[in-house]
């Protein structure tokens, strides 16, 4: 069908088919051109690297104490100063990135898996199943997230794993709703019908045709969700529910530092900044992803 006439306006048609570059490539291209998102990605990248290489970056172990050098202000030896046990705050903040990343991703991962599954079932099968699941979600939603998390964390007891579970459960409804909405809109798309017309069964349709297309909103929500989860977890730690001594959870560090705030500003400022920058980065990235995944939404 292509034109026989040589055309210098367009490049010569390549003989070999071009590399397979899916929508994700487009997304990546759009994301790349968004400066804010790149800043976000860099922040998160640095954070992840910090977490991975924490032992190499931190000058001391997070638990190493030096009771003779308590509450030292920042110096060359201890970039962020020391805390009330003489522990190096820089080291603790560095190690803390591991915890925050873990908490954020595990909690959100849990919420996405459970919520996504519930949402998919709910959306795909509709009817009674849908009704029951969504009413359940309504019930979960009618308790503000942090309170639900507090109730869950309190009944499970303090500890990071429990915080992850608590925060995760609290955000299940959100993902269930997103996935359900996506599934509902996808379910009646013609390509799903086309798949059915060529003999695909429910499983294939859900896994191959519906799920991959729900991914975009989940990724966006997930990125922002990680941010929220980290904040919630910090909040729970602040309330004393996330503690796993002597792990350097940022929220817990802040919580401990509050008694020393007036004398040793550095004890609270650095963990506070660490949380802030992390959330900032995740938000930038999340916003960028939203724009990149759904160009229509771009302002």
């Amino acid at each position, binding site marked *: 069908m292509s034109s026989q006439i040589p055309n210098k306006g367009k490049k010569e048609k390549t003989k070999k088919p071009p590399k397979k570059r899916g929508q994700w490539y487009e997304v990546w291209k759009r994301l790349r051109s968004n400066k804010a998102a790149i800043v976000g990605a860099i922040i998160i990248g640095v954070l992840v690297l910090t977490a991975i290489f924490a032992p190499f970056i931190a000058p001391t172990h997070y*638990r190493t*104490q030096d*009771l003779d050098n308590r509450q030292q202000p920042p110096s060359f030896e201890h970039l962020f100063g020391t805390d009330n046990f003489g522990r190096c705050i820089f080291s603790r903040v560095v190690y803390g990135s591991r915890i925050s990343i873990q908490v954020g991703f595990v909690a959100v991962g849990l919420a996405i898996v459970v919520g996504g599954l519930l949402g998919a079932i709910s959306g795909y099968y509709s009817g009674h199943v849908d009704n029951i699941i969504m009413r359940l979600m309504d019930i979960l939603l009618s308790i503000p997230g942090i309170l639900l998390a507090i109730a869950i964390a309190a009944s499970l007891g303090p500890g990071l794993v429990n915080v992850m579970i608590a925060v995760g459960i609290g955000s299940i409804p959100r993902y269930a709703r997103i996935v359900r909405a996506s599934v509902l809109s996808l379910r009646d798309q013609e390509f799903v019908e086309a798949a059915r017309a060529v003999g695909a069964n429910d499983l294939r349709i859900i896994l191959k045709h519906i799920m991959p297309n729900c991914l975009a909103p989940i990724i966006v929500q997930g990125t922002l969700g990680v941010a929220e989860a980290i904040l919630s977890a910090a909040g729970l730690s602040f309330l004393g529910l996330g503690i*796993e*001594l002597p792990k350097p959870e940022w929220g817990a560090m802040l919580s401990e530092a509050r*008694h*020393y705030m*007036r004398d040793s500003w550095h004890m609270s400022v650095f963990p506070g900044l660490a949380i802030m920058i992390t959330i900032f980065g995740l938000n930038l990235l999340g916003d960028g992803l939203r724009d990149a995944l759904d160009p229509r939404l771009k302002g």
Partner: protein
Amino acid sequence: GCDGEVGQIENLIVAQGSDADSLDPHATNDQPSSRVKKQIYETLITQDENMELQPGLAESWDQIDELTFEFKLKEGVKFHNGEELKASDVEFTLLRALDSAHVGHIVGAIDPEGIEVVDEYRIRISTVEPFAPLLAHLAHTATSILNEKAVTEGGEDYFRNPVGTGPYEFSNWEMGNEIELVRFEDYHGEPAHIPMITFRNIQEDGNRTIELETGEIHIAYDILPQDINRIESHENLTLLRDLNFSTVYLGFNCEKEPFDDVRVRQAINYAINVESIIDAVMEGSGEVATGPIGPEVWAANMDLDPYGYDVDKAKELLAEAGYEDGFSTTLWTNDNQLRQDIATIVEEQLLEVGIEIDIEVLEFGAYLEATADGEHDMFILGWVTVTGDPDYGLYSLFHSNEFGEAGNRTFYANERVDELLDKARRSAEPSVREEAYMEVQEIVREEAPWLFLNTGEDRTGLRSDIRGFVNHPAGHHALWTVYVEDEQ
């Protein structure tokens, strides 16, 4: 002036870290409530800040026999509702207390059948078996004397319509927030100086200091160790620091390996630099505990040697016990900052002698349950000898009848200790008791079911012009003696 003329302020604002739970002395036994109740109610006997027994509502008392005391009540004492105090009120109060789950143990020794109203102002109280600490127990706020009519009328809501004989009467309670008391004008003793008291609930410890600094409140209880300097160096503020009846300890589960070996327990006592803990965690407040009860408690054994910090000795002992390479174990605590901080340091210091610790922070409820069930290895708790009598501080904690919930969460058992504790409890003779307690403390120190940490301290922050305030070692301080110094 300083001889007790009326202060210049109308309303004394006192802040503590929690609201009272209930103003019914039999409904709860928590410190914030007691601090309020102390102003409203009175007991038959009181203990001054030196823990000397003083007449309260009872003018005098006599021991009739090994089991029985007779109390003579002060006449003309008015309750806030206008009723007069009668012996029947005392009987009513004690019987009611005995029924209470919360405070039953305080009066538990009393034989309900053995309460006998002799006449309007005289009452006899008998115990089931000889119980020497009885008088001290009757000074506890839980045995505050209630008015039968008020209680009956109050019904389920008595807890927020309390009626006592104290210098202040209850006026208003904004639940969760603040309680207002006003001076009781018909008070039988010397009337209070300040017409009104407001107890404010300021949870955040640091905020109480800030509020004190900014002049929003007059008295702040339970000042953070971190704020000691700040208040002491503040020109308008004073800090009162006094040792109290509390002891903080790290208990070992003596039934469990390796803590069933006394050498291990001793080794840990040597391995920990308690002084550094006190410095780091409590900013040097309180004192190193040498034994199970602090110096403020009667019959405290002041001759006990502190273990001291001696890592070599610790290692030696561990080696003897067969743990030259150390071992791993867990340390439990609840979500209390102080205890967590202690745990953090203990963990680090025990590494020195090869003991690796996993700190588990439990929620208070779970913590109590689990330590009572003996699931733990090591744990951190405190004990307040509220009555100031060593029986209260030693019996529950070290008697083998009291395993678990009852108080002996170390599951420590020693026949000699049991014997001595029983003897001291029964004997009416102070010297006999004292001797027994001294020995108990020696044994306990030696056998070390605890890592002895520290004796607590009450820190009350005051505005400098506040006078007449004294810390009471039981933690509930009298406020009717408080006044404001004239500016001249």
